[in-house]
């Protein structure tokens, strides 16, 4: 497929890198010459230096032949313009990143009128992610699949957990314990897809998958703290904080936002009447203590600077706040953060790339089983993919234990007629099943690549 990426900042470059690996022809466009050159040096792409909203530039990039255009410049307006013009020129799908909440409120109309196939709002997507994390405070990461019916939860194994020190196949034998699928384990920065003989050690980051009810029961059984988060403090009053507050206040959570800019703070208190808005510097420990940070159930750092987020997050962890979520845009630092005790990290850029790649992969695949959902775990070391099984595929009707599956992949969950099935060896796949696969190999676009006769 021929794909144009307009604006190759961190998100654009990340997307281009993944799409190149999957074998597509990529043309990148950016106004900054050094950025384009750097991109062309490190990736097998063609680069054009220019303004993506300029028709001449789009024609030079042969937009009329392009299957997809992804606009990720810093400006919402340029992104929208690029998409509009490209669509008129003949590009197949157009995706725009639109951040401004003003545009976002009219998103549906905008999408319809401007013919934009997908608009990604990084801030809102991040807020949704944080909202999910606040629902299960003990978990490092949660992702939902199959329209919310299946949840994949990541948690850190503690020394006295019941699952530690025992082979996985033995854990399943305990009849009282809710059955979940042990999908993946991250140990020492490596991703392992466990088999029955795998033994979980303390400190491992374990990913388990099951339906929502079973998940809750599982964690209760393990004695994990499932008490709801009632008080949340947010450092920084930007767009993410706004979206987040709007999501969690209706859940009955009490929100305190600390913002250093008086104008912003005033505006926040206007648009979020139920929130407790404090004017002050969130990095100032005195202010944090004054506002009862110790009594908070969760602390979310959402300032503009990654370093401030990290340091304040560390401080809160040391203070004993049960759940600390840190916003960090440097995707490469993810592994380092885990070693210093910050387990929950959100990266708006990762979330944006993931959303866009998800859509792109879905649009790309016309033969084979369609990838409908994509989520990356462990900083990209593993991927969770959701497919719909077709009657014509080779693995239909055969028991899983008789199928060969690619090393490093595992069929995690099968959803059949709204029923969640944690697959055993003698389960099989029927047409129409939604199959969720976890793989440590990237770039899989077809379920037939994972399992075969």
């Amino acid at each position: 497929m021929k794909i144009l990426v307009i604006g190759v900042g961190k998100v654009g470059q990340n997307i281009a890198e993944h799409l190149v690996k999957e074998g597509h022809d990529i043309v990148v466009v950016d106004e900054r010459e050094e950025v384009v050159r750097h991109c062309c040096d490190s990736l097998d792409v063609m680069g054009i230096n220019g303004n993506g909203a300029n028709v001449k530039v789009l024609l030079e990039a042969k937009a009329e032949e392009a299957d997809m255009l992804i606009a990720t410049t810093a400006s919402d307006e340029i992104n929208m313009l690029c998409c509009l013009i490209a669509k008129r020129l003949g590009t197949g799908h157009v995706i725009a990143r639109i951040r401004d909440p003003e545009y976002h409120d009219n998103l549906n109309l905008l999408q319809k009128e401007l013919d934009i196939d997908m608009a990604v709002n990084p801030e809102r997507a991040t807020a949704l992610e944080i909202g999910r994390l606040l629902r299960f405070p003990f978990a490092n990461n949660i992702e939902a699949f199959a329209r919310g019916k299946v949840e994949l939860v990541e948690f850190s194994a503690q020394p006295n957990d019941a699952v530690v020190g025992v082979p996985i196949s033995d854990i399943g034998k305990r009849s009282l314990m809710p059955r979940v699928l042990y999908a993946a384990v991250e140990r020492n920065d490596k991703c392992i897809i466990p088999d029955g003989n795998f033994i979980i050690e303390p400190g491992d980051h374990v990913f388990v998958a099951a339906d929502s009810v079973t998940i809750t029961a599982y964690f209760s059984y393990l004695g994990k703290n499932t008490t709801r988060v009632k008080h949340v403090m947010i450092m920084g009053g930007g767009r993410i904080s706004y979206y987040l507050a709007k999501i969690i206040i209706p859940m009955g959570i009490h929100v305190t936002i600390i913002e250093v800019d008086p104008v912003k703070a005033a505006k926040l208190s206007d648009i979020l009447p139920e929130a407790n808005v404090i004017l002050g510097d969130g990095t100032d420990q005195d202010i944090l203590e004054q506002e009862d940070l110790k009594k908070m159930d969760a602390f979310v750092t959402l300032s503009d600077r990654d370093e401030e987020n990290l340091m304040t997050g560390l401080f809160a962890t040391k203070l004993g706040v049960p759940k600390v979520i840190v916003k960090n845009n440097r995707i490469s630092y993810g592994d380092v953060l885990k070693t210093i005790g910050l387990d929950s990290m959100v990266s708006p850029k990762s979330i944006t790339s993931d959303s866009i790649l998800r859509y792109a992969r879905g649009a790309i695949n016309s033969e084979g089983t369609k990838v409908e959902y994509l989520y990356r775990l462990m900083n990209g070391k593993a991927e969770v993919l959701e497919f719909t099984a077709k009657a014509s595929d080779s693995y239909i009707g055969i028991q899983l234990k008789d199928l060969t599956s690619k090393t490093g992949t595992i069929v995690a969950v099968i959803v059949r007629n709204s029923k969640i099935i944690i697959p055993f060896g003698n389960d099989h796949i029927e047409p129409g099943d939604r199959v969720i696969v976890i793989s440590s190999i990237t770039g899989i676009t077809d379920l037939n690549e994972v399992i075969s006769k």
Partner: protein
Amino acid sequence: MNYRMVLRTQGVILMLEALFMSIAAFVSVYYGEPTAVMLFMSTGITFLCGIILWLTIKPKEKTVRAKEGLIVTAIAWILLSLFGSLPFIFSKTYPTATDAIFETISGFTTTGATISTNLEAIPNGIMLWRCITHWIGGMGILALAVALLPTLSGGLNFVLKAESPGPEFSKIRPKTSSSAKLLYVIYIMLTLSEFVALLIAGMSPFDAILHSLSTAGTGGFNNYSDSVAHFNSATIEAIITVFMILFGVNFSLYYAVLLGNVKSLFRSEELRWYLGFYAAGTLIITFLVTGNYNGQFLQAFRYTSFTVAATMSTTGFVTTNFDLWPLAAKAIIVSFMFVGGCAGSTAGGMKVVRIALMIKQSFHEVRHSVQPRRVNSIRFEKRTVDNGILHSVAVFFFTHICLVIIGTLLVSLCGQYDFESNLTAVITCICNVGPGLAKLGPAENFAGYHAFAKYVLAFLMLAGRLEIFPMLALFTSASWKKAN
């Protein structure tokens, strides 16, 4: 340095080289020549070494970084040449191994300077191999490798940049491998066109193949001691002239034309400079040399148009002994050696775009010194030229001239011939043209040089073809440091 990836790539290149060698070997069999055995032997050895490297070395990391890219190219071409000289060595076509290596490097770098004293005696198979080296070297062996094996391309970005001629590396398609493939398709089509045209003009099939391959790579090897003058046919000379000029044009323009965008030909500023130099050079020299041809203007034009085309495209075919021309005409020819062809073609020299940019820069400097406050940008192809490019072009020019000077000094150390011969020998080699002046003129050859001089000239040929820096990078310790 990612030694493993470097060596593995060499494996592929050697296997490709062996493939082409086998073509020459089979042709040798067709003509019933005893040298066929040596050709097959060389093919076998090259292929064996290639496949051993390919199968035994598994690189841990598949990418070649910028610093390694330069060295990989240099090493690739050196090994290419060493193995490529095997046919000559085994068949004892030339007196010494040094001669064989010189001839091979002259082949791959598309210089065309020969140490053959008796071209007619060389067997057909070997002769074909000589011209094949021109053909491969013109477009580049690494480009061919990437075109045939797309999986290599991801890591070889920097290597291709080093091999392709011109200040900027531009692709005609997003993926490097698609780009290389298309360029080779255009290359093959043009070569075939010349072959057909030459057949129609009356050349024998074997001669036509040799000359097509040689023109395509803008090399200059052929099978007659008097070069193209042998045919004494204005038609053949005209055909070759046209194709020499064609092969000196940026191939991406041909791609644009194929896609239906003929206007790009008229818009190309570099093409205008190229044709402008050609037209001006031909006209001026024709007037200067009319005296040499008994006042016959048309005859003078015939020989001049051929010679200027051969020089600018750096092919180096000869139809007249231009060493007998008046001094002014000879000076223009030598200057044109420096200009060379367009970027993105198979021609050598500094490339028209660099000359054009430097001329513009000079005017810019003059204007700036007269009016310091005036803001002016240097534009080329309707775009402002980045300062980085201007800088690299200037450095390239200076380094080039330095190499010419040092090269002449080194060659002079052998104490042979005279200054004019040695200087033009160096210039013709680094610009990959072929003939020089005086003792290295169109009617002479390089056989008489000392072995040391031959090696210096061979190094210069490689430096010119690879645009200097890859060969110089061999001498910097930074390139050789181990990465892991």
